[in-house]
């Protein structure tokens, strides 16, 4: 079942270097760029939408850098805060929950390709950390792990509001994971693979992007993805007006920051999955993967040409991801939130049947075409 080609091959050193570089790149992008900067983006974007200025006061020697320093001050503040554990809480689990929440959000990125395959000095570089042939199944598996973080955090806090939040997370995640898996079956049927690199290469032709081949699947998936992300309009597990902060009510300091970070990281992951499945991954519309490498090869020579093409593809991929993050934030700041039973109804009675219908229709069309 597993494809072990991503493991070290005979030319061990270049593979190891490549692997380390990719992991460092993704970790840096997620932990050092996205997780903190998204906090800033969220503030500034919401300020823009609401005719406000947004955070702009933190400064070093008079430089405010558009409020970016607030990210640093936030981190510092959270670092120095009291790490409060309520009386009667289950201490080990209370400690463990934020880690369980944040790690899956990070490792889910391993199978998402942020570029294609490039020949550099006779070594094939594949811009994905782990090119698993079960790709999306791995993401589902890991994403469902992060649910435990929230549920355990809610239970271990010894607080009724946290417990209610944890229960809501459990129910919501369970419902939407089923639906989310089914919404993507159509995509897998169309591309004939679960491997995200294969899906990415299949989207070389602009009109073969997932959004054109699976429009309903896309709408359903983004609904489920928003619900999995626990953000407005699906933020009922942490609805601040009802449950104070839901499952992380009793968390403070860096442990609170980890829950917060896991939410942002999940948003990045969801955007990346959206891009990889529905928006051509690293592909540029109307320019084929090999075409760009060849064109750049003519300009800069084969090796440097491949590097330039690789950089272009990586930038294209992240631009797409960032656009999706912005759209997700637009949704978050525009809509009110559902009620718990309404979320359940939407998941089980609307999204799930539609996803099943989508599979059947896709199947018929595929049969007719072939």
């Amino acid at each position, binding site marked *: 079942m597993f494809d072990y080609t991503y493991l070290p091959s005979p030319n061990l050193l270049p593979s190891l270097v490549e692997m380390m570089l990719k992991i460092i790149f993704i970790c840096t992008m997620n932990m050092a760029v996205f997780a903190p900067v998204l906090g800033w983006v969220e503030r500034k974007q*919401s300020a823009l*939408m*609401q*005719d*406000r200025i947004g955070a702009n006061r933190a400064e070093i020697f008079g430089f405010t850098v558009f409020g970016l320093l607030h990210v640093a001050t936030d981190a510092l503040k959270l670092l120095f805060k009291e790490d409060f554990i309520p009386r009667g809480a289950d201490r080990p689990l209370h400690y463990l929950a934020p880690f369980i929440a944040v790690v899956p959000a990070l490792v889910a990125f391993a199978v998402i390709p942020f570029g294609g395959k490039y020949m550099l000095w006779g070594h094939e570089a594949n811009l994905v950390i782990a090119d698993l042939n079960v790709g999306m199944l791995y993401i589902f598996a890991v994403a469902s792990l992060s649910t435990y973080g929230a549920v355990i955090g809610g239970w271990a806090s010894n607080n*009724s*509001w946290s417990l*209610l939040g944890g229960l809501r997370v459990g129910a919501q995640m369970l419902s939407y994971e089923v639906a989310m898996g089914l919404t993507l079956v159509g995509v897998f049927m169309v591309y004939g693979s679960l491997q995200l690199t294969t899906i990415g290469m299949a989207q070389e032709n602009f009109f073969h992007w997932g959004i054109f081949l699976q429009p309903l699947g896309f709408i359903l998936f983004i609904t489920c993805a928003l619900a999995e992300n626990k953000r*407005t*309009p699906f*933020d*009922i597990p942490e*609805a*601040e*007006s*009802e449950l*104070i902060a839901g499952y992380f009510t009793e968390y403070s300091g860096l442990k609170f920051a980890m829950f917060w970070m896991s939410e942002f990281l999940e948003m990045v992951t969801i955007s990346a999955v959206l891009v990889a499945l529905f928006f051509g991954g690293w592909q540029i519309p109307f320019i084929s993967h090999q075409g760009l490498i060849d064109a750049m090869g003519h300009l800069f020579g084969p090796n440097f040409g491949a590097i330039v093409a690789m950089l272009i593809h990586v930038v294209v991929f992240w631009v797409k991801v960032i656009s999706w993050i912005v759209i997700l934030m637009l949704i978050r*700041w*525009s*809509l*009110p*939130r*559902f*009620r*718990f*039973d*309404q979320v359940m109804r939407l998941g089980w009675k609307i999204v799930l049947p539609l996803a099943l219908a989508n599979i059947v229709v896709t199947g018929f069309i595929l049969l007719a075409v072939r």
Partner: protein
Amino acid sequence: MEDKNQLDLNTELMVLNMGPSHPATHGTVRFFLKLDGEKIVHMETEIGYLHRGFEKHCENGTWTQAFPYTDRLNYCSAPQNNVAYALAVEKLLGVTDKIPARAVYIRTIMCELARMADHYTNLAAGTLELGALTAFIYFVEARELTWDIIESVCGARLTSNYIRVGGLASDLPEGFAGHVKSVFAKNRVFWSEFDKLLTHNRIFLDRMRDTGAISREDAISFAFTGPCLRAAGVEYDVRKASPYLAYREVDFDIPVGTTGDNFDRYLVRMEEINQSMRIVEQCLSLLPSGPININDASVRNPSKEDGHTYMESMIFHFKNTIEGIQVPKGESYVPTEGTNGELGFYLVSQGGGKPWKCRVRPPCFALTQAMGHMCTGSYLADIIPTFDMINLIGGECDR
């Protein structure tokens, strides 16, 4: 079927203490909930966390000194409290008909501006708690602009302390009509943006429709007044039922709902904002010139200039300040249409410069007592829109 499940699974009810320092129980109130899952089985409301002894305070000051206290009842619409109190004192004094027309119109304008500001605040806060953060800011900005007008009149945004027994603290500033016109133009844009974001928003409708509903009969028996009563289908508005100030002279409509649920309360408030704008615009066109204070030095202090020039005026200044204006023995109650419902002061005078008893009828007290009635059987999340549309103001309810 639910009962059967309960028997099989031996579930227990969860007891939850919501408030008094819960994000949703602003105005400090405490809900004692018994939950079956997310469903409310039993709900008790406990008020009194913001009790400051307003009524007792009033008995220890002169009739005029109560005005700053009234500001702090419903602080979102302070001028209305000022007006309600002034009208009750004027009725005791028997000078209701002698208030100059200009003062009456300015009082009407201030009342309606306050109503707008209050509705903006209430609707904005309500949507904020349903998670619509951007719509919230739009109406908060509209409210700030409205408060700009109020500030230009009396120098304060929140606690206006503007109305006096027998008149006003000061006349309108120059360019007032133009200021109002420009603000109303902006506010109408905010209104339509808010309307577009929410009124036809499916999620918002799902949260508001059929939640916190109360029948016409129950609303009346709970002594509902104001938008919540009108949302339940009762066309009762003190401004029409027993007109005071200049409401007889202006033309306006009373929006009435049908179902009495949160969405109807929302719609009634949205429309009342427009009607208040209409009233203000009519009042501005009808605004007569002339004095703003009653020509009776024993009720309203003569001007400072007179006080520094004429001996009698100076004596009145002393007497009115030290002993308070002398109100004859008796009792009075003047109902007015506050933003949330009927607002009135029941005053008892034993003669002399101080109220013997000052009792306020706060509209949201009656509304809050029905919280349990409206929320039992619904979901925990339904408390949020219901409580928001009730618009409990702690300062007013707990006094």
